[in-house]
C-alpha cells in the first residue's frame, strides 16, 4: 500500500478517534448529565444492553427500506423504459412524477396514514422518495446514448430491441447506478421520516419509532444508540451500491477509474 493510500485511510480514522475521545472527555470532565449528552462509551454500552429491542427495530426499518427500494427500482426502470419506447407517456406522466418528488414526504405521510395501515404508509413514503432519482437518472441515461452509435445501429439495421439491449441500457447503466446510490439512501430517509410520522400516530416499531419513544422517556443513550444504528445502516447501503457500481463500471467507465499521475 502506497503512502498516499495509507494517508487516505489514516487521516479520517485519526480524526474520528480524536472527535470521539474529545466528546468522551468533555462529558466526563464537565459532568454532563446522561439525559443531556451521553458519553460515547455509554452509547455503546446501551447498544449492547438494548440490542434485542434495537435489532428487532432495525430489521423492521431495513425491511421497509429494501422493499421500498426494490419497488422503486422496478417502478423507476419500467417507467423510464416506457417513457423511452413511447414518448407521449413521458409527457403525460412526468409532471406527476415531479409533483411527487417536490412534495415533502413528511407532509404526505399523515395523509397516507388516513388511507393506509401504518406499515403500508411507511412503505409508500419510502418508495416515493427513492423512486424519483431512479426514474430521472434512468430516463436521462436512456436518452444519453452516443448519437454516432445510434447512427451506426441504424446503418446496420438494428431492431428497437437490439438498440435498447446493446446500446441504450449499457449507456444508461452509470446513470442508473448513480440513481440507485441516491435512491438507496433516500429510501432509508423516507422510511425513517414516515416511521416518525406513523410513530407519533401511535404505532410502529422501526428504529425511528425507538428514537421518538426514547425521547419521550428521556432515555437519551438509547436515542443515540438507535441513531448510531441508522447511520451505520445508511453507510452500509451507500457502500453496497458504491461497490456494485465499481463492480459493474470499473473496467470501462471514467467515474470508477483513477489516472496515474
Amino acid at each position: 500500500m502506497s503512502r498516499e493510500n495509507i494517508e487516505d485511510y489514516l487521516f479520517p480514522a485519526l480524526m474520528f478517534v480524536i472527535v470521539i475521545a474529545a466528546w468522551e472527555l468533555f462529558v466526563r470532565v464537565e459532568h454532563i448529565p446522561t439525559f443531556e449528552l451521553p458519553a460515547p462509551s455509554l452509547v455503546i454500552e446501551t447498544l449492547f444492553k438494548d440490542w434485542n429491542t434495537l435489532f428487532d427495530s432495525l430489521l423492521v426499518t431495513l425491511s421497509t427500506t429494501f422493499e421500498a427500494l426494490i419497488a422503486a427500482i422496478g417502478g423507476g426502470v419500467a417507467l423510464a423504459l416506457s417513457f423511452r419506447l413511447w414518448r407521449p407517456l413521458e409527457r403525460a406522466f412526468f409532471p406527476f412524477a415531479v409533483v411527487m418528488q417536490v412534495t415533502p414526504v413528511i407532509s404526505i405521510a399523515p395523509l397516507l396514514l388516513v388511507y393506509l395501515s401504518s406499515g403500508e404508509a411507511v412503505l409508500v413514503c419510502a418508495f416515493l422518495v427513492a423512486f424519483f432519482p431512479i426514474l430521472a437518472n434512468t430516463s436521462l441515461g436512456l436518452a444519453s446514448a452516443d448519437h454516432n452509435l445510434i447512427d451506426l445501429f441504424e446503418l446496420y439495421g438494428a431492431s428497437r430491441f437490439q438498440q435498447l439491449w446493446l446500446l441504450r441500457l449499457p449507456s444508461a447503466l452509470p446513470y442508473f447506478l448513480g440513481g440507485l446510490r441516491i435512491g438507496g439512501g433516500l429510501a432509508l430517509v423516507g422510511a425513517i421520516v414516515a416511521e416518525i410520522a406513523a410513530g407519533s400516530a401511535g404505532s410502529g416499531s422501526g428504529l425511528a419509532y425507538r428514537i421518538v419513544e426514547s425521547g419521550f422517556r428521556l432515555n437519551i443513550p438509547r436515542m443515540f444508540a438507535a441513531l448510531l444504528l441508522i447511520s451505520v445502516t445508511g453507510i452500509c447501503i451507500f457502500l453496497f451500491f458504491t461497490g456494485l457500481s465499481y463492480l459493474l463500471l470499473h473496467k470501462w467507465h471514467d467515474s470508477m477509474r483513477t489516472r496515474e499521475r
Partner: protein
Amino acid sequence: MPLISLRGVTKAFKSGTVALESLNLDIYEGEFLSLLGPSGCGKSTVLRIIAGLTDTSGGEISWRDQRGLGFVFQEPTLAPWSDVFDNVWLPLRLNHVSRSDAKPRVDEALANVGLTGFERAYPRELSGGMKMRVSIARALVTKPAVLLMDEPFAALDEITRAKLNDDLLKLRATLGATIVFVTHSVYESVYLSTRICVMAPRPGRVVAEISVDPNTNRDEDFRLGPYYAERAREASAALQDAMGSAKCA
C-alpha cells in the same frame, strides 16, 4: 456506369440552413474519392445521405447494386462498455451472426488493422490511433463494397495520421473497397485519393474535380515529388476559389 449517383440533391434543415443545393456526384467502383472543403460545406451531409442516415429535401440517389456500406466517424465512436472484440463484432451481431461464427471475420479485420492481441482491451485502454483502427476494423468486418469515412483522422496527431494514411492505402489495395473520404486537408486528400471533389459552402455544392493518377505509388517519394506538389497546388487553388465563392447571407 457509376456505383452511386447523386443527381440534383438538395438538403435543407428545419432551421432554414441549406446544406446542399443541386449537388451532382458520381462515385465509381474501386475509386478513392475525397470530398475536400471547408467546414460547413456539407461534406459530412453527403456521406450521411449516401448512408441513408438523413433524408434529402430533393433530388435523386441511385445505386448500381445495393451492397454493404461501412461508416467510419470523425470520432472512433466505440461502445466503451465493450472490449475490442465485441466492438468489431457489433455489425455482425446486429445481423444475428453468433460470436463463434463471427470470430474468424473479427480476427481477420483486427489483423488487417494491426490489432491482433488487443481483443480483450477496452477502448479507454487504447490510444487515439488504436481506437480509430478498431473503428476501421468494425467498418471492414462486414466486407462492405463502399467505405464512407467522415474526417476519420482529423483529431489525431500528425505522426499517427500519416501512419494511418499509409495503412488505409494498404487496406484499400488488399480489400479493393470503394472509399469516399471526407477531409479538409489538401495534402491528405492528394496523398490518398484517385479523385478529389472540391466543395464550396453556403450552400454546399461540388465546384471542382481533380484527378490523381491511380497508378502512382503512394509513398514518401510520391509525397516529396513534383506530381504531388502540382496536384496539391491545384487542389489548394480550387479550395481557395471555393471559399471565395460562398454566397454570403
